[in-house]
């Protein structure tokens, strides 16, 4: 059981590094608070290019979002869910990072279904289908647009 845990941790950590590198060109890894103790806490550490490794609590808003997304996609690569739904996950991203994120989602979408809510055109331009919602007199209506 302990073996399974640490094997999983190592694999997810590798995937986390891979996704984080795709998004930032930096490095990231997961480790236990107490080495070898599977009951202690899980620590996430990242190194943004040209910056020192910091506690993830002191990352900027956008950096936190990229870190969180890399973690979720690392879990997905290890144990895929059939679909992912993100409600305005890109709020804190600047235009450059927003586009990196949406391009990554587009690549992952060849093997997993993604449903994202977004206000950002950098996200919308990568979608294969756009669902437009409007409200009139308190009643919501939907328009569907196939892109590819």
């Amino acid at each position, binding site marked *: 059981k302990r073996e*399974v*845990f640490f094997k*999983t*941790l190592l694999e997810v950590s590798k995937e986390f590094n891979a996704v984080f590198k795709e998004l930032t060109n930096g490095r990231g890894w*997961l480790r*236990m*608070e107490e080495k070898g103790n599977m*009951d*202690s*806490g*899980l620590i*996430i550490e990242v190194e943004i290019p040209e910056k020192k490794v910091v506690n*993830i*609590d002191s*990352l900027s808003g956008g950096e936190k*979002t990229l870190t*969180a*997304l890399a973690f*979720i996609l690392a*879990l*997905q690569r*290890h144990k*895929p*869910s*059939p*679909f*992912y*739904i993100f*409600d*305005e*996950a890109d*709020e*804190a991203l600047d235009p450059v990072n927003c586009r990196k994120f949406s391009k990554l*989602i*587009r690549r992952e*979408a*060849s093997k997993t*279904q*993604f*449903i*994202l*809510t*977004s206000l950002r055109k950098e*996200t919308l331009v990568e*979608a*294969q*289908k*756009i*669902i*437009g*919602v409007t*409200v009139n*007199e*308190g*009643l*919501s209506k*939907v328009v*569907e647009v*196939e892109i*590819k």
Partner: protein
Amino acid sequence: LTIKSVELINFKSFKLANISFSAGFNAITGPNGSGKSNIVEAINFALGIRGSRALRAENVPQLIFNKGKARKARVTIVFEESRGEVRISREINRRGRSRYLLNGIRKTRTQIVDFLLKHNVQPGGHNIILQGDITKIIKMKPVERRAVIDEIS
């Protein structure tokens, strides 16, 4: 397994809508308050989620379209599976009672949840991230975060 379409009947701001999804990358957009998060919550709802936080409703009757005389709200998800289509429905009435259907057959919530679990889907799983929650994994205590690894080991 993918979500092929979602039908909302009297759910929150939707009197009637049938939304079909691509098997790839879908983006839902529109003005503030138009209904984007309501669609996300409709999917969570049909998957059997419980609790007022995920649905932003103090009680279940608040989920029923409040402009008009609707007495029930229903959401149906049509899934595409290797063996064909699977339809899951959840309906609630003004008394707060939920009714679940799987391919038209009445089921308990537990049966629905068990079926979904076989496909690696659970209500409120980490594959559904609600508005404002993306950085939750960062703000979590390290031991809570470790539990996420436990779950997938």
